């Protein structure tokens, strides 16, 4: 698991996020898919109370209802379209991916909300992530039939 967590859409870079998020939990209340979870003490003292998304369990469907309710502005209100979201980038583990290993599967390609943009098919009908377009919602990770998921979202660089 990555050291950084997948944050809701519009989240500021991690260092700023941790300092400015007031841990009020309103984004979690606003999420109709209950994808935004409130991190607990076991996730780490500095993380505790902040919103995290465990994409494998329930990904972000990019409805963006959480962004305007954030009182502290750590979810950036300027993010209004799903194409603007930059939560992270999906990465395919070709050794685990069914299609890359020869079985036909297009779950991630079919379910990607930026259809045929963020995940495309190469000439041999294998899925490829377009890192410039991928917003990191994690739907691909959620629907991947491989176990563990062969496509996972790497949270955006803390930068």
């Amino acid at each position: 698991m990555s050291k950084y967590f997948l944050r809701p859409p519009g989240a500021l870079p991690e260092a700023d996020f941790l300092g400015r998020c007031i841990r009020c939990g309103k984004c979690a209340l606003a999420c109709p898919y209950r994808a935004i979870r409130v991190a607990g003490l076991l996730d780490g003292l500095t993380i505790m109370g902040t919103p995290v998304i465990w994409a494998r369990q329930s990904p972000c469907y990019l409805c963006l209802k959480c962004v305007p309710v954030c009182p502290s502005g750590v979810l950036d209100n300027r993010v209004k379209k799903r194409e603007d979201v930059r939560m992270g980038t999906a990465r395919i583990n070709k050794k685990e991916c069914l299609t890359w290993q020869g079985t036909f599967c297009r779950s991630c390609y079919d379910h990607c909300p930026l259809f045929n943009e963020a995940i495309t098919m190469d000439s041999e009908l294998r899925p490829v992530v377009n890192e410039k377009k991928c917003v990191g919602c994690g739907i691909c990770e959620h629907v991947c039939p491989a176990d563990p998921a062969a496509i996972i979202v790497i949270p955006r660089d803390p930068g």
Partner: protein
Amino acid sequence: MKITPIRRTVQVLSLACMVAVPLLNSRGISAVSGSFYSVGIGPLLLTDPLIAIQPLLATMTIDTTLLASALIPAGFALVFGRVFCGWVCPQNILSELFDAVGRRLGLTCFFAPGPVSPARYVVLAVILAITLLYGFPLASLLSAPGIISVQTARLIYEGTVGLELALIGIVILAELFLVRRVWCNYLCPVGSMLSLFRSKRTMRVVMAEEGEHACIHCRECAKACQLGLNPMGREIASQCHNCGACIDACREMTGERKPLSFRF
């Protein structure tokens, strides 16, 4: 008219709201949404003043929306004292409940001795200093009402609660076995912050000058005070959260002569 029944009604409503808001939110009705950290009522945003200044200290960025949202709660405290603590806060409701249980069971515990008003501001200052030095919003992790409300929402949304609730358990045990009402009285940073918004005209319990003759020195008011304060003194200590228990106890003894009352 007794104050305590009115206050109990407000407390029950507070708990009901704390449960109803996440329940309604989870069904898509979100006109009111939030927790005791920050709540949005339609377009109106209200934030705990202590919570609202944290980002300013932690990252030195001025967020006017967030700071402005603390003005109404701060103004309310300036006019009515820290009534949030006495009338609304779920931690105070729990602490009051366990204090009553503890006394019925005969558990011995005492009020901390000596002048404590400045000590609580030291606790608050240390917490804010840590926020400033480490860029970390520590008070959010120490806000008992915030934790209780967020964990209630989590229970409704996810069916589980987090270890954060341990703080609430520790507070209750410490209050039962060590120092009576230690959290609200001396430690809680949320309450200490609210008591900073206090002026000469802030509502408080006052022994009326004309009432001094009416006072029969029965000390029932001091006995009734859960925080161990003495309402008969010249100036009641700043941690008084205007619960009004002393006024009720006084009326019981002196009838309509009313030596004690709320005054602005």
